[in-house]
């Protein structure tokens, strides 16, 4: 009954480094009870606050240690934090044993150190958050909860869904990865949210900047990489009950997880149910163009929704071998604001819509995402082999009352295969696989080689047409190496080759349109899309350098990233009823290419830290939906035509974060972000890019105490967010005024006899300020952001022994 996690620190061989004899080196390895290296375990050496994270082989090195007595602090999720005092008068090895965490996963406080050190390791700029952060910043959806991170913004669709935007780039320019498999859905759509259950996420890495090297096409703007790392300790079972409530949209949510492990077998199951009503905005009417739609009691009519998710994980863990099978289904249904579906203000049956804030009437959308993923890895002493296999099915439907647009028949004919109320349906089947081999050649050199492949089959249905059915295949291979010149300076470089193929199927209207040819009019079933068959190949590369000093860390990365054009960019040919724009693809587009220079500078001492992450970015051909002055009378039903075109784009920006310890328990912090984009060529030369987030700064005051009366790990945080006006816009956007919002959050852990309860509370938009978010889906029709919102999350962990 190996209930202990054994930490083995092995005597590492030392080579005398050129720095003076007053400095020493500490080297070690962290493994779990099955002699598996613990990757990502966090090592902190006090009082000098020097930290490290164990590498893929569980090893760590801390150099330049002045002689003296230190306190070593080693933590990892699921294991008890190990604290010991060590005396260093020469370069030493150190042996220790860790005790298992016998309460729950939530017992271990994952120090920010893990994140800090991962950030140092990478030459790209990353943000890392864990489930504790998510609960303290819980928003309406996963991206909403991450919005506070510097460089991260969202495109919100109502109160329950949002799309990721990193440094102003979103849609297919951001890759979302869950358990090593790329999450594939209808991310090209403005009204599509991310089908991720935020209760089921325990570790998120946000890569700010192009990361095609490791993640392939689409990672041109950044990556949201989520992993379920938590592994139950041996011969134990447990779980967590989460209860969430929000006042603004009367949300009630619960998520229950149960896990257990017996020797080599472990399992984890989770069920989440969330139900929310229409959300409230601090206004009693919304101006849709010059028409003023009245809102009843500030409720944004028909924005209620629900989410029902199930997850099951089965796992095997043996010496050096681990395999996990994840099965999940994420289901949501939510309404669209009933007074505006498209540009036209819509008449609503106010009696029907306002009889309940919880019902979902037309127009609404529902999404089902099924995912089956297997991740397997073998570990040897200095190498690791990983396999991932994934199957996904995404089904998204938009429903609205049948309204004939253009030449659609005024009364829906009964003889068609689809429901008249089904506006659009997208169904996607995705099969993906990865192989990766990594090896530590010697103390100075690590390398990695890998392949990713993906096959997609996309189907459409419904009365509206925007993109055709298509198949897509992609295959990529990369090699990556890391070399340490000294303990403080290392270089990383990588090279990747990708091949991609996309085939679209032809589509004809289901209704005839009158076509005038040679003076005579005939009724024709118009062809909207032809058979396009394109293939692409590309070489990308990346070169990074890190340099760490006692108080400073510097990083630089330069790389090329790319993105294969998506089906919508190649073959769109229809009216987007959410905007009343007629969108036309261009089958000749080439893969989008981007070059980016990323820098990171950070200074940290005990009292004070400041960091800046500036970047310069150049796209040789940014693919962009360019509004023209034309109208199309046949295909476009008289709507303005938007063409997909390419233009050169130059972007730069910076995130700055700083914190200063005013008092031992009180910290002042600043998080700010800025991005500027300009099109250098093409018809919109001089213009910015769509959905450009305005600059913002968050001034934060945070009080934190290990124990405050009966509350452990008590915290209270005050955020004052200042966002500047955005007048750098492209058609059809509107300039958006700046705003200031105050958010509060506070909470801690309370012990009731043997039961621990975690409570996180928030007040968002404390002053009920009426403001507009430039990148909100509803911005164009002048819907302000949600009003004051009290959020409570209660998390009850429990644990037992088998």
């Amino acid at each position: 009954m190996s209930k202990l996690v054994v930490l083995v620190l092995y005597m590492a061989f030392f080579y005398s480094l050129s720095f003076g004899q007053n400095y020493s080196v500490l080297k070690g390895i962290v493994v779990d009870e099955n002699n598996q290296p613990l990757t990502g375990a966090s090592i902190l050496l006090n009082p000098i606050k020097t930290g490290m994270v164990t590498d893929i082989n569980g090893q760590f090195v801390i150099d330049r240690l002045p002689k003296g007595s230190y306190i070593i602090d080693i933590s990892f999720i699921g294991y008890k934090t190990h604290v010991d005092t060590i005396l260093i008068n020469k370069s030493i090895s150190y042996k220790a044993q860790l005790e298992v965490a016998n309460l729950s996963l939530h017992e271990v406080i994952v120090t920010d150190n893990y994140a800090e050190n991962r950030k140092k390791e990478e030459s790209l700029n990353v943000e890392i958050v864990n489930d504790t952060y998510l609960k303290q910043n819980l928003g309406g959806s996963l991206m909403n909860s991450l919005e506070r991170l510097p460089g991260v913004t969202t495109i919100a669709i109502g109160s329950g869904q949002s799309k990721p935007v990193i440094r102003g780039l979103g849609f297919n320019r951001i890759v979302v990865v869950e358990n090593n498999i790329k999450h594939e859905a209808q991310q090209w759509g403005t009204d599509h949210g991310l089908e991720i259950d935020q209760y089921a996420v325990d570790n998120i890495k946000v890569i700010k900047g192009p990361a095609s090297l490791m993640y392939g096409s689409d990672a041109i703007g950044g990556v949201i990489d989520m992993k379920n790392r938590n592994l139950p300790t041996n011969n134990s079972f447990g779980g967590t009950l989460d209860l969430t409530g929000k006042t603004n949209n009367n949300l009630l949510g619960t998520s229950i997880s149960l896990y257990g492990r017996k020797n080599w077998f472990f399992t984890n199951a989770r069920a989440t149910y969330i139900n929310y009503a229409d959300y409230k905005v601090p206004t009693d009417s919304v101006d849709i163009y010059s028409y003023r739609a009245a809102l009843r009691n500030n409720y944004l009519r028909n924005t209620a929704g629900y989410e029902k998710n199930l997850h099951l994980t089965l796992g095997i863990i043996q010496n050096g071998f681990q395999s996990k099978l994840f099965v999940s289904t994420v289901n949501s249904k939510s309404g669209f604001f009933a007074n505006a579906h498209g540009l036209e203000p819509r008449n609503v049956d106010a009696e029907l819509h306002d009889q309940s804030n919880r019902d979902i009437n037309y127009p609404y959308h529902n999404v089902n995402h099924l995912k089956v993923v297997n991740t397997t890895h073998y570990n040897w002493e200095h190498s690791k082999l990983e396999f991932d296999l994934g199957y996904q099915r995404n089904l998204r439907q938009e429903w609205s009352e049948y309204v004939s647009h253009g030449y659609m028949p005024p009364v829906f004919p009964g003889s068609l295969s689809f429901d008249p109320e089904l506006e659009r349906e997208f169904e996607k089947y995705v099969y993906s696989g990865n192989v990766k081999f990594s090896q530590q050649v010697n103390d100075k050199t690590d390398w990695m080689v890998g392949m990713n492949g993906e096959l997609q089959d996309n189907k459409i249905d419904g009365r509206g047409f925007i993109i055709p059915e298509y198949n897509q295949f992609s295959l990529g291979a990369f090699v990556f190496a890391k070399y340490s010149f000294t303990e403080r300076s290392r270089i990383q470089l990588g090279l990747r080759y990708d091949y991609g193929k996309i085939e679209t199927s032809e589509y004809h209207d289901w209704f005839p349109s009158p076509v005038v040819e040679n003076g005579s009019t005939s009724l024709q079933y118009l062809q909207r899309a032809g058979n396009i068959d394109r293939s692409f190949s590309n070489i990308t590369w990346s070169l990074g350098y890190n340099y760490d000093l006692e108080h400073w860390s510097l990083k630089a990365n330069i790389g090329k990233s790319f993105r294969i054009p998506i089906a919508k960019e190649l073959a769109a040919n229809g009216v987007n009823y959410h905007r009343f724009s007629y969108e036309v693809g261009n089958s000749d587009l080439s893969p989008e290419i981007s070059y980016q220079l990323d820098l990171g500078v950070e200074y940290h001492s005990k009292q004070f830290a400041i960091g800046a992450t500036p970047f310069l970015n150049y796209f040789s051909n940014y693919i962009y939906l360019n509004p023209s002055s034309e109208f199309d009378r046949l295909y476009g039903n008289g709507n303005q035509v938007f063409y997909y075109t390419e233009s050169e784009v130059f972007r730069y920006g910076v995130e700055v974060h700083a914190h200063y310890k005013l008092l031992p328990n009180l910290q002042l912090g600043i998080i700010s972000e800025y991005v500027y984009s300009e099109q250098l060529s093409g018809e919109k030369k001089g213009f910015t890019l769509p959905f450009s987030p305005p600059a913002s700064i968050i001034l934060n005051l945070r009080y934190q105490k290990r124990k405050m009366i009966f509350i452990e790990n008590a915290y209270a945080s005050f955020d004052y967010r200042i966002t500047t006006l955005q007048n750098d816009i492209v058609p059809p956007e509107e300039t958006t005024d700046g705003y200031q919002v105050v958010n509060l959050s506070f909470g801690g852990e309370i012990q009731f006899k043997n039961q621990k309860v975690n409570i996180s509370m928030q007040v968002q938009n404390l002053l009920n300020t009426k403001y507009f978010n430039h990148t909100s889906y509803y911005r164009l029709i002048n819907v302000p952001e949600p009003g004051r919102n009290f959020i409570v999350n209660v998390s009850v962990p429990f644990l037992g022994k088998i």
Partner: protein
Amino acid sequence: MFYIPVIVFFMLIAACRDDNKVDSEKPYIDISIAGAFPTNCDTIYFGETFLLKMAFSDNVELGAYSIDIHNNFDHHSHSTEVTECNTDPVKNPVNPYVFINDYAIPQGSKEYEINLPISIPEGNDAGLFDNGDYHFFISLTDKEGWSSQKGLSIKMLH
């Protein structure tokens, strides 16, 4: 204070930014000129020709405009105008009238007044067009692709 460098940084960036002189103004549809037709709640008669009259303007150059007339028998859409019109009871369409057309504006125009005669037929092969509530939608672009819309509630009668 320590955040001064942060602010200085922001100011530097703001200063470095060249202020682009790009067109960021939408074109304007004016239906308040003398004799403008149709305006909200007006009636258009089948089998007759009416004169579309309104004024367009833009700060740089106008692009094109389109007209879309579709039935609103189910009251699905609302005009963009503040005034409310009397509507007939909701009914199912039998042979509703549809009109979609787009028109060019002479190049280089900053201001343009349309006086466009549009003939509305009595019916088609399927018979007479349905009387009732219709929606008259005008969309205007400028050369850069900015657009403005007007959605008017009208009646169409025989």
